[in-house]
């Protein structure tokens, strides 16, 4: 998606606000070495260390990843949509209306429109429903019979799409309104004449629909620009009307909206690294509904395999057609495309695919029942921890807001400093919020970690060991940061005048923030690369003995010199080295 690069540059960018939060895998792997090796040096000497390590502008630049997405506000969306329409209309010498219909048909993909149009204009015109000349011509007659109400009417009352089939304006209005009130399928509206495929575009809506429906239609059209576009998604935060535009296939799934909501652009659940989308969906479904509902949903509804909307089937045959504009046709039993069903694949009603899976499923079912008994306790264990981190995160967000709205100004006055110097406090809080988010998802990860099997026991014990090791580091870091941002800061807010050690405090807070961030980045990487990690036996030897049992044991022997040694002499061996290697 090279062509996207220029677009990203000129739009609203959130890069500056969230620079470090992205977990892009850059090549600066050595930066992380320090913090892995020193499992024990949890002493309070961050201030010194981090100045060298992180505040070095060169290091920052190299670490800052390129953002693979753009946040769009409603005006931006409109603008882009209009730009695309104008582009197509200019290149193909079509009216704006025709260009709109064409773009909608090809899911707002300008390149595809151009390609298709230039390869076979005739075919495109036919399938989209853009006729060059009218099929029916009633302009000469003084009267016409409306094809809907069957009234004989004077010609000034008639309207038609590009095909020319005449219907009276009242009937058009009814036809259009019914379709608009049925949902976004109205964007695909065609001429009422059954055999006619002529598209009914925004110009007809404009001319014939009442205000309320016009408004709805233009909303549908705007929404379609995001919803039908493979490269865009709405921000799922409640009340947020922004969207993100991204390059398909490019890099990171996590995006941050201007409303500061972080979410995964693939599944539009809140950001959930290191856990993958599938696990999150399973986990959320498990949490959001009690047993009864889960059963009901599992038994009565499925999601459309294409657009993922949930569907309840209450009548009719197995041949499902999703609501427009998705209109995907699939088999209810096996959820594969209906087109793949036929005599050759075993027929339409008794889907072979499904039956083969059922045979497998019967075996699974017995096992599942057995496991269900044990799983509830396990689930409760993980859920409680997941939920408590969730509420901690919300609490931290509240604290951050309160800090920004109340204490910041006070702190400025008391400590005689500028707002920009206090940026580190906001950053610290944002980091806390982010950490809680990661911690939360590690519990979902833990829940779905494969059960021990005989052959794999050793492997997973090791794996859990290494995770546990990162996990403890990360959690301890977070606790310290939280304490610092909450308790120690209070002292300075309530002080009578400027405190002499306020600068030291700032340095310490900045240091803690960045150290904690590194810990969490490492944790996320370790979890994401979990399976590849263990291939190296060297790593195995170094890490296993000290990981689960005594993460703090090799005391602060490396503590003092850490910062200065940093990049020049990355520690040999050790888990850190290995993790960095695999993450490249």
């Amino acid at each position, binding site marked *: 998606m090279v062509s996207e690069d220029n677009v990203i540059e000129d739009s609203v960018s959130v890069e500056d606000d969230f620079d470090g939060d992205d977990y892009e895998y850059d090549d600066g792997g050595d930066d992380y070495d320090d913090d892995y090796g020193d499992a024990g040096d949890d002493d309070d000497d961050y201030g010194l260390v981090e100045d060298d390590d992180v505040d070095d502008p060169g290091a920052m630049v190299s670490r800052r990843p390129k953002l693979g997405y753009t946040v769009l506000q409603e005006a931006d969306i409109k603008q882009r949509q209009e730009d695309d329409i104008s582009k197509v209309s200019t290149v193909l010498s079509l009216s704006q209306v025709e260009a709109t219909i064409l773009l909608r048909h090809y899911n707002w993909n300008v390149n595809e429109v151009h390609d298709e149009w230039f390869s076979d204009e005739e075919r495109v015109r036919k399938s989209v429903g853009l006729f060059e000349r009218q099929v029916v011509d009633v302009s000469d007659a003084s009267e016409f019979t409306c*094809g809907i109400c*069957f009234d004989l009417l004077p010609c000034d009352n008639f309207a038609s799409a590009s095909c020319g089939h005449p219907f009276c304006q009242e009937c058009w209005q009814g*036809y259009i309104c019914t379709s608009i009130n049925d949902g976004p399928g109205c964007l695909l509206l065609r001429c009422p004449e059954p055999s006619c495929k002529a598209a009914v575009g925004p110009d007809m809506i404009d001319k014939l629909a009442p205000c309320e429906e016009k408004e709805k239609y233009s909303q549908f059209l705007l929404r379609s620009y995001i919803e039908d576009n493979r490269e865009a998604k709405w921000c799922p935060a409640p009340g947020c009307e922004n969207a993100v535009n991204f390059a398909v296939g490019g890099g990171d799934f996590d995006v941050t909206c201007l409303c500061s909501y972080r979410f995964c652009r693939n599944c539009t659940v809140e950001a959930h690294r290191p856990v993958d989308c599938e696990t999150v969906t399973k986990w959320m479904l498990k949490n959001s509904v009690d047993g009864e509902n889960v059963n009901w949903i599992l038994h009565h509804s499925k999601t459309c395999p294409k657009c993922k909307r949930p569907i309840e089937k209450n009548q009719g*045959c197995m041949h499902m057609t999703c609501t427009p504009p998705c209109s995907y046709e699939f088999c209810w039993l096996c959820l594969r495309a209906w087109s793949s069903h036929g005599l050759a694949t075993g*027929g*339409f*009603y008794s889907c072979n695919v499904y039956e083969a899976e059922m045979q497998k499923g019967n075996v699974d079912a017995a096992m599942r029942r057995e496991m269900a008994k044990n799983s509830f306790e396990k689930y409760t264990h993980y859920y409680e921890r997941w939920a408590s981190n969730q509420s901690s995160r919300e609490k931290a967000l509240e604290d951050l807001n309160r800090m920004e709205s109340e204490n910041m100004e006070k702190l400025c006055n008391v400590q005689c400093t500028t707002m920009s110097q206090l940026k580190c406090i906001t950053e610290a809080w944002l980091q806390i919020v982010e950490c809680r988010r990661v911690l939360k998802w590690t519990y979902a990860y833990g829940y779905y970690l494969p059960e021990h099997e005989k052959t794999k026991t050793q492997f997973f014990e090791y794996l859990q060991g290494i995770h546990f090791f990162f996990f403890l580091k990360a959690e301890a870091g977070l606790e310290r940061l939280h304490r610092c941002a909450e308790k120690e800061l209070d002292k300075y807010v309530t002080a009578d005048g400027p405190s002499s050690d306020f600068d030291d405090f700032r340095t310490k807070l900045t240091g803690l923030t960045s150290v904690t961030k590194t810990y969490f980045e490492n944790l996320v990487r370790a979890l994401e690369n979990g399976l590849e990690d263990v291939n190296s036996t060297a790593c195995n030897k170094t890490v296993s003995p000290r990981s689960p049992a005594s993460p703090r044991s090799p005391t602060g022997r490396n503590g003092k010199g850490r910062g200065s040694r940093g990049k020049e002499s990355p520690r040999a061996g050790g888990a850190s080295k290995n993790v960095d290697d695999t993450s490249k």
Partner: protein
Amino acid sequence: MKASRARLFKEYKEVQREKTADPDIQLVCDDSNIFKWTALIKVVSKQKNGGKKKIGPSETPYEGGVFQLAFAVPEQYPLQPPQVRFLTKIFHPNVHFKTGEICLDILKNAWSPAWTLQSVCRAIIALMAHPEPDSPLNCDSGNLLRSGDMRGFQSMARMYTRLAAMPKKG
């Protein structure tokens, strides 16, 4: 409401006037309610129909039967499709065997207000002649057709036509 009445009234007059145009379809409006209609569909053999290939192949298993349809017309008609079902039992892949519900795209998402009750009847006759075993409501019937057991399908369908759609003899 007013528009739907006016339109139904026009269709009623058209039916009265054109009685002979479609001798196989008898559309009757309920005496007291213009939103309730019934139709009788006669499936006649090719020969009796004057050699016209109107109802599909002569080996249709519904031949000789008279099938009754019930129309419930919504107030939003013709913007919304009428609800149609078979009152006469029929063995057909796209008709529910118990309720008579019909699986036909023009009665669902492919409806257009330019269709009339008369043209719906014609579409149903076409459906009887050309079943769509790909989207079956009656799976037994669909399975027979899909597996290529034409004889099985024909004899089942013919039996139900005799039992339900023909006047009892003697």
